């Protein structure tokens, strides 16, 4: 899971915050409320979940609770992995 956290954080830091400073992103920062990502950015993250972790996000799973922070994403990945 630590590797997944690192992949997710690197994706957000490099592509949306344009920094290598790890302190720029807290794991519980809301992407949407903090303005880090907009809804198009969330769709980019959904693509990343598929490409990096082979996770398909179903329509009814496309809710902020699953996708709106690093911690939300890690919990969602764990839930999806257990369901496999």
């Amino acid at each position, binding site marked *: 899971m630590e590797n997944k956290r690192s992949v997710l954080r690197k994706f957000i830091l490099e592509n949306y915050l344009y920094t290598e400073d790890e302190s720029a992103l807290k794991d519980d920062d809301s992407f949407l409320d903090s303005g880090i990502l907009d809804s198009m950015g969330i769709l980019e993250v959904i693509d990343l979940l598929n490409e990096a972790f082979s996770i398909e996000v179903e329509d009814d799973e*496309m809710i902020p609770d699953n996708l709106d922070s690093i911690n939300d994403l890690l919990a969602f990945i764990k839930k999806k992995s257990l369901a496999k």
Partner: protein
Amino acid sequence: MSNRVDNLLANYVKLDYQAEIDKISSRIRAMLRESLHRRGLVVAISGGIDSSVCAALAVSAIGAKRVYGILMPETDSSSDSLHRGQALANHLGINYTIQDIAPTLEAIGCYKWRDDAIKSAVPEYGEGWKNKIIIDGGTKGKINHFNLVVEDPKGNRQTKRLSLSNYLTIVAATNFKQRVRKNMDYFHADRLNYAVVGTPNRVEYDQGFFVKGGDGLADIKPIAHLYKTQVYDLARFMNLPEEICSATPTTDTYSLSQGQDEFYFSLPYNKMDVALWCYNNSKDVGTLAHALSVSEEQAQFIYKDIETKRKTTKYLHLQSLLIDQVDL
């Protein structure tokens, strides 16, 4: 339309239409005289309600002789739209031209880029098929995402959720339509020494339903402060042709018939007007829920969707960002 929606619109969105026409006309003249220094107005006429009202307001402001209409059909636009546009131009007595932009779009790759992206999602898509994109999620509390609907020549439909890259490519390709049209607007504006009218209504302007450098580009946007309901009322007040006053808002951009609510707003225009009006006037979710006959949870999702679209499209409104301020 529900009675509640009707009543709310009647009570809160109603205007003194003659006073509004006088105000808009006066401001258009002042803008031309004081800021733009142009001697007329170009209006791209789609056959829809917004561009029709804008053309009529332009005529009200400066007279038919100083307004030039451009009708720009292409492969996927409806022939009804062209007929309505011609009916309007003739009704207003303005000079106009019809410019088929399909060959330009073909040459620039609009249709090929779009079709290649569609085929990537639906490999059997080909000659004789039709398509459209539908938005889903936001008003149900989910992340907005986009579904592709295709119809084969026998009328069989299938719907697929689009990957982000395919969605972005399809939209980028179809945005050529609005941008090519805007090129034509400014060609005629330049040769005539006219200014260009942009036709977004308030909901479109507020929610970012326009193409940057396309229909979003203009010198004057005379109805950007008016809800769509008010635009329809203005059309009727100005006695525009009935076929225009009763036309359903469509994008007229995709080959399958596509309402603006399907593509972007998720709500029919009258309900979207109510939702935005309630939001702008700080009405609580209970008021919106009652007006639209939806649950308070759904009303909250609608408010959230309004905020999300504002955020997502904020950059469309921005002028070019400069590193240092340049005083002019």
